[in-house]
């Protein structure tokens, strides 16, 4: 019989992270990757060897510099317009993080709010929110991006808007499911009987318990959002074509993938690495929240 008394502790995300750090190699690896990426995002424009290349400017004498393979002068080579690929990637890091974090944070806030309200107030509010969430859940982000692109024109708002519209219902749904199970708990009844005001019940009892698992989910999702943002930009629906977005750099290099594979390869690797970092972080945190997950994982391998 597994011991009931030794349930995992929910003493806050900080506590969770501390435990994950001490136990999980994956968590540590994830933290290292994410910290490095954040550092790159902040410092990128300053440490890039050719900052103006990074921002998308084609250098003078572009023809001479174009298509150089990785070497001492250009560590990751140059693209077909003679821009230093490393600088492009470093300068673009903040864009990658800004797009995905903006989507995640706004989507999370919106989803939590609506999901919890749906679970707590029930009835018409529940039905309406769930219906809307379902509709948006069924829409692929790329199609939405296409529509937004038509209506609003090009720009970062297309990326963030379309991803936001497809991600908030996911959090609303996750938050709703957690909140529903928590609303059934006796401590909610106890609080109601004791006259605890509704808003306090919503915040202290329901939201406080919904937040950790949903937040962990959100951390895991950063990678997915990054990939989707890259995909939208890759298709040319989002940012302008000279923006240092990693997806756009991959797309630019795609036509030269045979003769200059480094143009697409390195930004692709950065996308992969960042996504991996966040999902490692989220996965190991989730295991801390729910040790059974880890069990299953162990069994598969």
């Amino acid at each position, binding site marked *: *019989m*597994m*011991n*009931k*008394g*030794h349930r995992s502790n929910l003493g806050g995300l900080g506590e969770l992270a501390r435990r994950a750090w001490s*136990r999980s190699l994956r968590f540590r690896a994830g933290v290292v990757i994410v910290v490095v990426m954040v550092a790159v995002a902040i410092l990128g424009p300053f440490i890039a060897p050719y900052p103006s290349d990074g921002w998308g400017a084609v250098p003078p004498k572009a023809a001479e510099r174009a298509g150089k393979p990785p070497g001492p002068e250009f560590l990751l080579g140059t693209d077909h317009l003679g821009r230093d690929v490393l600088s492009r990637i470093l300068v673009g890091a903040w864009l990658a993080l800004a797009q995905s974090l903006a989507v995640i944070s706004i989507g999370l806030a919106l989803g939590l709010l609506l999901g919890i309200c749906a679970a707590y107030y029930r009835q018409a509010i529940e039905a309406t929110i769930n219906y809307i969430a379902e509709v948006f859940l069924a829409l692929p982000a790329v199609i939405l991006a296409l529509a937004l692109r038509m209506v609003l024109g090009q720009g970062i708002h297309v990326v963030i808007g379309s991803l936001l519209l497809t991600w908030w219902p996911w959090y609303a749904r996750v938050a709703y499911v957690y909140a529903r199970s928590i609303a059934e708990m006796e401590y909610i009844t106890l609080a109601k009987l004791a006259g605890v005001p509704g808003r306090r019940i919503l915040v202290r009892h329901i939201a406080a318990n919904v937040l950790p698992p949903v937040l962990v989910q959100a951390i895991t999702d950063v990678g997915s959002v990054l990939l989707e943002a890259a995909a939208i930009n890759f298709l040319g629906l989002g940012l302008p074509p000279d923006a240092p977005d990693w997806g756009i750099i991959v797309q630019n290099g795609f036509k030269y993938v045979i003769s200059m594979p480094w143009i697409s390869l390195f930004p692709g690797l950065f996308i992969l690495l960042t996504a991996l970092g966040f999902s490692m972080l989220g996965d190991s945190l989730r*295991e801390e929240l729910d*040790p059974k997950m*880890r*069990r299953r994982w*162990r*069994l598969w391998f």
Partner: protein
Amino acid sequence: MVLAVKSEGLKIGYLDEQDNVLWAVKGVNLEVSEGEIYCIVGESGSGKSTVALAISGILPPHAVTEGELYVYGNLVIRGESRSYEKIRGRLVTYIPQSPGTGLNPYLTLGDQFYHVLKSLRGSTRKEAKAEAKKYLEMAGLDPASTLDRYPHELSGGMQQRAAIALALSTGARVLVADEPTSSLDAHLRLQIANLLLRLREEVKLTVIFITHDLLLASRVGDRVAVMYAGSLAEVGKLREVLLKPLHPYTSMLVDVIPTLGVKKQLKCYSGEPPRPGSNDEGCPFFDRCPYRFSKCAAEKPRLSLAEGDRYVACWLYGNRE
């Protein structure tokens, strides 16, 4: 006499998140004779359910074992290796705590019998139906009204009976019942207990009855093993153990159980059972024992013969090897 179940130094633990082993069962020697109703009594965390899982061969993969376990002479646990191929579902069968979980909710009872019997013996539908009738009747159910029903159409007590009938139809000789009555109402408990008694008489079934309910055990059991913190505290004939408990823990159990119609004062024993993975030195009951003395803290008592065929793990009884 054939021993239905025998264990020697059986230890079972689970891997925790850091891959440390938390021992739930810490060296248990059991001897269950054929045709006996053998009760294992203990509180939560005593390891009684883990023993039940080990005997019925359904320990989870992350469990760790040591020692030996025999079922009808078959060595099923030997050190870290476990092999249940020959006995699981054939010699031994398991009844879980909540009656619904033992049955497939998407099949009628008749179909469940058919699937079980087909896979075991290759029975046809007709044969399976005949068998099902036999065992349902044995379990005190009316086959005509239950064979075509789905589990949710039956009451809790009927579900548990059906689960027992299904278990018996496999031809199992040993039935491991893990708290089979704890989710049932009081009068249904009695019926299940009587059913087990009757089956023991009719088919010479060996029943390993896991429960925390001492009074219920006293109705059905021939012998009882009292478990505490993963070890056996006392083993003996049930009646003798209850009427004259030797181990202080057993006597505490007897003291604190409210009995209907006898309004004795319930004795208050402070403390709670130790959590798994806690200090293993000395007697596990040391903290709560009213009769403890210095030796108890230093050395863990081993199960040894106290009087007659009573085995007690307590230094009060000299712990003679």
